[in-house]
């Protein structure tokens, strides 16, 4: 199996190279430059010119790309033009926030979705099923950011239960209180994200369980005299949860992508917000680094899903 995993990772290398090249060129194709707006508007054009030259921004694109790649291999992602600090440090400080939010959202999503999906399928066609399906259709048909804005308005402003910006209160002391404050800040975006994220899992799990309910091996289990509750526990749910487990690999990367919406709307200082800001400020080094990270995470997510599937499902073996 490890051979195959290694091979898959090796195949990822050219994919990542192509991806980085594309990203780099797209970033360069954006109009504008990182300095014009960020320095004093009345700055001397000559000085601007000098800055551009210093940063190698007049070099041909392949020269710039090459420099970037060489630096990359030295672990140097460059400096952010906007924040004037190394991109690696900038991103890693933001990544922690995003990771906590993503993790919290994932856990919540499955906490909501698994019971809902199983319950709906077990009582297929009855009232609880209808209600759950109605709920999934509603959330599915409303755009994510609309849900977020409505949520922030009701719970943040009207009720005032949750903070609406930031990742930690400025007055929090280090230690317990800071951890509490962090949790408090991800509560609302996490719950909103989870409420939205459940839709896919619920629908998928529901149809898996309904298929399993009618399968021949479940009929075999019944004919063995296995009580109905155990039939569900040992056969139906177990077998239907496997594809969901494998789905987790994708869903984690999916959440990282989704964090762009959540973080922007909640002004939550994570990778998503950083990404949007760097696009606004033409912070090339940050954009390219982030897109590269997202890309690699997506590729790893697919691989992770395949590995999970091969572990939980004996029919699928990676060599």
């Amino acid at each position, binding site marked *: 199996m490890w*051979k195959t995993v*290694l*091979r898959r990772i090796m195949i990822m290398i050219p994919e990542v190279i192509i991806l980085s090249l594309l990203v780099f060129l797209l970033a360069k194709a954006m109009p504008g430059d990182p300095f014009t707006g960020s320095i004093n508007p009345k700055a001397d054009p000559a000085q601007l010119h000098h800055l551009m030259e210093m940063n190698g921004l007049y070099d041909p694109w392949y020269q710039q790309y090459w420099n970037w790649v060489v630096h990359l291999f030295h672990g140097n992602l460059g400096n952010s033009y906007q924040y004037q600090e190394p991109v690696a440090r900038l991103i890693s400080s933001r990544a922690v926030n995003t990771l906590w939010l993503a993790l919290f959202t994932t856990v919540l999503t499955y906490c909501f979705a698994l019971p809902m999906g199983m319950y709906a399928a077990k009582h297929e066609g009855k009232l609880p099923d209808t209600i759950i399906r109605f709920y999934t259709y509603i959330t599915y048909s409303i755009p994510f950011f609309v849900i977020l804005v409505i949520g922030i308005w009701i719970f943040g402003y009207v009720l005032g239960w949750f903070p609406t910006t930031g990742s930690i209160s400025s007055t929090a002391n280090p230690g317990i209180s800071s951890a509490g404050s962090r949790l408090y800040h991800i509560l609302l975006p996490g719950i909103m994200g989870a409420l939205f994220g459940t839709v896919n899992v619920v629908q998928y799990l529901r149809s898996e369980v309904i298929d399993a309910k009618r399968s021949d091996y479940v009929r075999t289990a019944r004919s063995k005299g296995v009580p109905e509750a155990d039939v569900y526990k040992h056969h139906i749910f177990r077998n239907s949860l496997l594809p969901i487990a494998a789905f987790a690999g994708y869903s984690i990367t999916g959440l990282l992508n989704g964090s762009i919406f959540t973080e922007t709307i909640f002004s939550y200082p994570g990778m998503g917000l950083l990404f949007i800001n760097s696009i606004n400020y033409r912070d090339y080094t940050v954009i390219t680094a982030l897109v590269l990270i997202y890309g690699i995470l997506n590729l790893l997510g697919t691989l992770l899903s395949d590995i999970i599937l091969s572990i939980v499902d004996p029919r699928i073996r990676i*060599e």
Partner: protein
Amino acid sequence: MSLIEIKNLEVHYPIRSGFWNRVTDSVKAVDGISFNIEAGETYGLVGESGSGKSTTGKSVVGLEKVTSGSIMYQGKDITKKKNREALDYNHDVQMIFQDSLSSLNPRKRIEDIIAEPLRNFEHLSKDEEKLRVLQLLDIVGLDADALYKYPHQFSGGQRQRIGVARAVATNPKLIIADEPVSALDLSVQAQVLNFMKKIQREFGISYLFISHDLGVVRHMCNNIAIMNRGRLVEIGTRDDIYNHPIHIYTKRLLAAIPETNVNSRAEHRASRLAVEEIYQKQQDKYYDKDGLAYPLVPISPTHSVALPQDVAQEIIKQEGEVQA
């Protein structure tokens, strides 16, 4: 000259393994078989699941990439795509499948399903086409109102008859029938088999009849080949195979057919167990060191068996003594 001459046909599937996914071995689905199908006859190809009989059928119709060997039709080797196109081969050779529901497009009406081969090969006017489709439906015993229905609106037997109608639409010379009746009930099976025979009588079509059911094969086929692990173990006329089987594998298959004579139940079981014992104990007499069948040797003008000549003669002598 035979209609189709299959010579040393091999279909191997590569097995890839190792870090670079190189071809390290192959599955020999069809491993060097030869037989001829005469015009107007039904040739039976019999074997158990995994014997390679379906792969052989698909090779003959051109659906399978052949590793080596040749299939000669009108003097040309049709394992090559170029020759198939030059001869309009798929106009002359059609196929009937086992699963009639999944082999008929569920979104097309019967008219379009049956007319499809006509549209591919014969350019008829709308009226001529409709007339032909109606004739074809009539041949397989379906009413004109079937024209505008969809496959799911028919029973299994009716669908299989539609499959037969589609296959005969272009007046083919050969139809490959891969387990055409094994999914059908007895009374419906009888219907489909009768239609297949009727069509053969009227149009002189040849069949390559692929089946695991020796009862049906005996009813349908003039010449029969028994296939085992990609090779032929015995070929001969119906009489050769059913009344004078030589190879233990053939005998084993024949002994396993359930007998409808209730009175001889015990004897039949005893003889089956006796054959099974020989099959288990004398593997090295009947198979080579790799467990595969030997090359065929002729023992009469019509009958060949996959055994070394001396072993074959010894068995024939023994059989003669038993009968005398």
